[in-house]
């Protein structure tokens, strides 16, 4: 007979953790997307001038996220910044996402053939109009799958913020495991919650992509 000491309260605790995970994901993706968009455009359109930016972003892409969390958290204390652990989590994850998204955006913009841009400029479109009506829409379609992958990746990477003391989904499940000693069950449930959250994002994305694909 199957019996468990997992209570309804424990489940609610897990869901609360999931809510934190979701919030972390949303904020860091928001930050990462805006910054990555700006940086990616700079990288694609002014490659020389933005080279130092590329070096900097390389650092954030190469150093393991966990190290970045711990370092930024101690830096915060040293400098005396008054930031919550949650804010630190969002910033570090956001910068990390921005570093990746920059490359995705750059790739998308560079995927627009020069000849297509020549064609639009030769119709009299200005540099800005060409960007807005031709380059960005095409680049968006190219970059979108990469962006979606990034969202799913960041959602899982949020688990690392437990090292700076935030109780999100994974941390919540570990707390419960420690108490009731049923790791398989609890981790399965936590995994299922991650899966469902990712599935929703992936499905929404796939629907948007399908709509574009009907066109081109």
């Amino acid at each position, binding site marked *: 007979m199957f019996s468990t000491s997992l209570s309804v309260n424990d489940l609610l605790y897990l869901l609360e953790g999931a809510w934190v995970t979701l919030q972390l994901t949303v904020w860091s993706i928001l930050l990462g997307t805006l910054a990555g968009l700006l940086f990616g455009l700079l990288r694609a359109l002014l490659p020389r001038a933005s080279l130092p930016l590329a070096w900097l972003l390389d650092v954030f892409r190469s150093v393991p996220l966990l190290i970045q969390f711990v370092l930024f958290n101690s830096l915060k204390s040293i400098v005396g910044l008054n930031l919550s652990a949650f804010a630190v989590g969002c910033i570090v994850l956001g910068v990390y996402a921005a570093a990746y998204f920059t490359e995705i955006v750059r790739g998308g913009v560079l995927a627009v*053939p020069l000849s*297509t841009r*020549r064609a*639009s400029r030769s*119709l009299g479109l*200005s540099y800005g109009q060409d960007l807005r009506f*031709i380059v960005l829409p*095409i680049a968006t379609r190219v970059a979108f799958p990469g962006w979606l992958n990034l969202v799913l990746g960041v959602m899982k990477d949020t688990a690392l913020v437990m090292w700076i003391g935030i109780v999100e989904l994974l941390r919540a499940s570990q707390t419960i495991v420690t108490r009731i000693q049923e790791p398989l069950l609890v981790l399965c449930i936590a995994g299922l919650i991650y899966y469902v959250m990712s599935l929703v994002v992936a499905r929404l994305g796939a629907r948007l992509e399908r709509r574009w694909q009907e066109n081109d």
Partner: protein
Amino acid sequence: MIEIENVHKSFGDLEVVKGVSLTVDKGEVVSIIGGSGSGKSTLLMCINGLEPIQKGCIRVDGIEVHDRATDLNRLRQKIGIVFQQWNAFPHLTVLENVMLAPRKVLGKSRQDAEALAVKQLEHVGLGDKLKAFPSKLSGGQQQRMAIARALAMSPDYMLFDEATSALDPQLVGEVLDTMRMLAEDGMTMVLVTHEIRFARDVSDRVAFFCNGRVHEIGPPDQVIGNPVQPETAAFLKSVK
């Protein structure tokens, strides 16, 4: 009138156009023929300021193209150009492809731009493809769309850069017919082409390009039918 005076153009150390002079009068059709890499495409892109030049001068209706003070976006409105690659805007329907520039550059209303676009698309025989996306069109249809897109700006000049070279042989005819129609309507045109017979049919003058220079120029019957320069004769022989 397009006036090209002693134009030199280099990419880095490589001089591609080496002192070309050529005048195209209003209503005239001038074809440019010549071997691969002789600088034909480059010269066309200089005419509407897509490429800078190092020496010489190009004037369109008296306006100097490479003068810093020239508003290129404005000048380009009256110079349509059709490239070898079709260059459709893949995210826009056929109708939207043609409407875009009239709306955003000329500031026409949606209705006006649409009416104009429909008229141009019907003119090139694409009246039944308005809502289609470019990826659903054949190469010939995409190229005719590109022509309609350029014509929707009511240009005074049309430049064609090997508009049929990337097409399957059975689709070449429909695009050439469209171009012929334009020539008969009195459009001022510069055609870079490898279709020698077509060039002979529609052109008022033919220029043979060789090594970044105009090597021979004159009426088609002379340049194509009875070339003076041995290089011209050799080229014509090689493309036949």
